[in-house]
């Protein structure tokens, strides 16, 4: 699924639910859209995890009805995806834990490609570093870690509090930092830290192909 299409579907689900971590979801979409569908994808910041639902729908693992009932009473798709939903590998939502799950999955079968998306906010969680050290120590070549860096945490910018030691990440060979934009594509959300929580957009949006994308 192309990025603009995934972005549109996530936007529609958020608006339909009238709730969600809109800024983070629209930020991670471009990373999620770029992941090889054959890989096991763990989205450790669970508040970004709903970006997986349109992909699961495309694969036939969840239904139109599931998508329509996102976040609604009786529906089975929660804001934070969990193990009980077909195609979701792990329950994430408590920050910092997903990378450890991904390490365990990758260790158990080194022929299985595993991708774990973590957020820059999770770099404040000590357990994230514990698991990154584990990945390095165990030479988990089949685990790719992507840090979604959008320069925003709930109360402002990371640089305003403890400055994240980005250079320390250089020691992890299969880790890449991807610069994204919080709330990308929606004026009320884009670049705004407050879009970590729900802000109702004033109008509907149609997301079109980005420059360089081809139909």
């Amino acid at each position, binding site marked *: 699924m192309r990025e603009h299409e995934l972005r549109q579907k996530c936007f529609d689900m958020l608006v339909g639910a009238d709730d969600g971590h809109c800024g983070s979801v629209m930020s991670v979409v471009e990373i999620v859209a770029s992941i090889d569908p054959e890989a096991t994808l763990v989205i450790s910041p669970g508040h970004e995890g709903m970006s997986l639902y349109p992909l699961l729908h495309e694969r036939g693992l969840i239904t139109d009805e599931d998508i329509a009932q996102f976040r609604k009473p009786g529906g089975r798709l929660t804001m934070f995806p969990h193990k009980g939903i077909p195609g979701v590998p792990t329950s994430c939502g408590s920050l910092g834990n997903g990378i450890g*799950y991904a390490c*365990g999955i990758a260790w158990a079968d080194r022929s299985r490609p595993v991708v774990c998306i973590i957020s820059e906010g999770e770099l404040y969680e000590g357990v994230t570093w*514990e698991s990154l050290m584990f990945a390095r120590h165990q030479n988990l070549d089949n685990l790719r870690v992507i840090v979604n860096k959008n320069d925003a945490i709930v109360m402002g910018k990371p640089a305003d509090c403890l400055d994240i030691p980005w250079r320390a990440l250089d020691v992890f060979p299969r880790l890449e930092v991807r610069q994204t934009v919080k709330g990308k594509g929606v004026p009320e959300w884009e670049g705004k830290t407050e879009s970590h929580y729900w802000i109702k957009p004033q109008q509907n949006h149609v997301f079109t192909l980005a420059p360089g994308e081809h139909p």
Partner: protein
Amino acid sequence: MQQRDAFIAEIHRAAVRDNKIVFLSADLGAPALDDYRRELPAQFIHCGISEQSMVNVAVGMALAGKRPFIYAMSPFMLRAYEQLKGAANHGVPIVVVSAGPGLSYAGAGPTHYANEDLACYRTLVNTDIYTCSTANQAAALARHCVRTGRMTVARLERGELPELYAPGVDLYDGFHWPESIQGVAPWLACGYLVHRLKAAGKPVVDVYQQNPVPPALMSRLSGLDYVIAVEEQYGPGGFGAAILEALSDRGIRTRVGRKALPHRAIYENGTRDQLLESFGF
């Protein structure tokens, strides 16, 4: 033999036959673990001092079909409680080998005591809890864990304790009620306290399975007026509370006397027995 060595030796035997078994340690050793590591290096991981990550890694392994056993000191396993909650919610067959509950590390101070872990573990979903009083019982528990594949907390005492059970003993109903105890109020306990109460001549029932509270035990208690539950834990949510709740849930009116640690930080120096003595055990 210490309980941890009996337990790990049993896991070692099973792991030789089943390469899905993986043993993870957060920087805690044991002589039996040295043997395991030597023979099965591909099924052992030294996770470093990182209990929280160890739990999460074990969850991932279990989701991918492995059978992880995670091993740490009881007080520090508790720092991964939130991760253990995640493990329990995933419904994966992780075995938490918790070494040194209660005041096992007596004299080390409150950071090294695990006086509230039983209460914490009792609230986890999908999780069985056992506390062993002897090495043969610990070996039986290890065999049980391999067989059942359920998330289980195995609370193992430190040091060598007198053996009360025959080699190859099974876990049976989750408690051991000596035939000699008839017509008197039994003292219910587990782990180290079983020995202390026996030494004091008390009619002690070893309730090594704490969660779920053994249903057969409830049947035995239903005909009694009074029982005494003794625990090396804080009272709220602990062993005595488990007995009380189980009785109440079944409408059994047997009265329960409870003895637990004082509900405060324990700063006093002393051996385990000296501390227990000072607390009126």
